[in-house]
Each structure stands twice: as C-alpha cells, then as structure tokens.
C-alpha cells in the first residue's frame, strides 16, 4: 500500500531543476516557471493559452504533479481535463479551478495539523 505524501511535502518549494518550465512548443521556452504548487496555480492565470494546451496534451502537467510534487490525486484530475479535450480559456479556467481547489485543501490540512 502506498502512503500519500504529506500536504507540506506537496506544497514545498522546489529546487530550480524540479520546477515546471512553461513552453509554447517543442524547445520554445516562455521564460516562465513554477517552483511550487502555489506558484503553478498563479502562472495558470497569466501564461499563454498555447503553453497550457501544449503541456496538457503532452501530459506534462500530470507527470509533474504526480512525480515531482507527489500528488497523484491532482494528476488524476488534470488527466480528466485532458480526456475531456478542454481547450482555450475554458482550459485555463478549469485547470485553475482544479489546482486552486487542491491548493486550498492541502493548506487547510496543513493548518489543521499545526493546530492539533
């Protein structure tokens, strides 16, 4: 049985080489990166739609959230967006909703643990 990582681990600040780097196509880096789940959530609101579509359909978001952040649950929700073939501003909106909801849940768990 696998043990899911703690909220603090998923919410941690990552090393430079672990960050998510936003590209718009093969080899074309936008200069934007996210080194935590919180920063990733913010970048979703401002990054070029082309970049969101590029990474969603390459499964890069799923790999990064599952393998680097260690959040398989979030990866599954992002996979669901991909399977529903969401694009454009709807993708930005729904991806932001999924990630921000997860971010809130994790922060709430973290606060609860600190209090108890």
């Amino acid at each position, binding site marked *: 049985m696998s043990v899911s990582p703690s909220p603090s681990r998923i919410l941690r600040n990552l090393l*430079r*080489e672990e*960050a998510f*780097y936003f*590209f718009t196509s*093969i*080899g*074309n*880096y*936008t*200069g934007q*990166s996210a080194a935590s789940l919180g920063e990733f959530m913010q970048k979703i609101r401002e990054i070029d739609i082309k970049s969101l579509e590029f990474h969603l359909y390459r499964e890069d978001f799923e790999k990064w959230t599952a393998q680097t952040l260690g959040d398989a649950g979030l990866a599954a929700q992002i996979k669901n967006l991909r399977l529903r073939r969401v694009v454009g501003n709807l993708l930005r909106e729904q991806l932001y909703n999924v990630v921000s909801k997860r971010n809130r849940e994790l922060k709430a768990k973290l606060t609860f643990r600190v209090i108890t």
Partner: protein
Amino acid sequence: MKIKGRSVALDALDWEVLELLQKNAKQTYTEIGQRLGVAHSTVYDRIKRMEEHGIIKKYGAIIDLEKVGIRPITAIVTVHTDPKQSEKIAEKLAEFNEVLEAFTSFSEELVVIAKVIARDQSQLHSFIAESIAPLLGVLRIRTSIITKKYKEKAFGTGLTYNPSRKGGQRS
C-alpha cells in the same frame, strides 16, 4: 607559411592544401601534389608544418547516421540570457554531449546559440526543458529544427585568401 610572432601567415598554396584536405583528408601527398601541380614532398612539408603549429587540429570521420538506422534531428537553439550569465551558460552548454557547437552572440540582446542534436523531437524537448531552461540566467529559449541541410563547410576560401594571389609564391 610564415611565422610572425605568435601568429602564422599562410600562403595561397597552404590554403589550397587545406581546402583539398577538408574535401578528403585521406588523399595521399602525391594526389594532392598532382592536383596542385607541386611535388609530393612540398605537400608533405606544408602539411607537417601546419600540424606542428596546430593549424590542422585533427582528422576526423563524418558519419552518416542514417546508414545505421539513426535519423537524428538537429536544431538551432537560441538562448536569451541575463548578460551577467551568458558566458557561464555557453560554457555549461558546451559540456553537454547533445550540443555540437555553442556560441555567444550579440544582436539586440545577448544570446547563446547552440547547435543541438537529438534522437527525436521528444528527446530534444526533454533536453532543453530539463538541462537548458533550469540554468541560472536563462530568460527564454527559441528553437528552430533544421529540416534540410544545403551546405556544410568549416571555412570558405573567400575568407582565407585572395584568389588573385593564387599564382604567387610556392615553395
């Protein structure tokens, strides 16, 4: 060939020998001599001196990877950099096996240009995303995948000597 301080001046015959060697480095001294109308001993002497002075750095093989079933892709990767970091980025890129050539350049801003080889687009993207984008000082990256090569040459005779000197000194 004349030595002037720390630099070496080549004459027209030296340049012609170099051009023939670039086309086919396995030619014999006699074959080169016949093409240029000079004795094979003259060719031997010129080549030896150019090797000794490091003008001819090495002889290599150009491999046709397609013949062994590998069809790599080549890309020109332009890395826009923080000016303070461009030298370090270029040095770092030069260490990677995937990078064939790396340069610093200045147009409107400082950039590092690298010629990169990869097995396929997926490997190219992974290399850029995982090895180049995270380097400190990288601002953004533009990549052009080469679709067809029309010419490849180490140097052009137009840069190296004046053709009007062709009939000049040959010793």
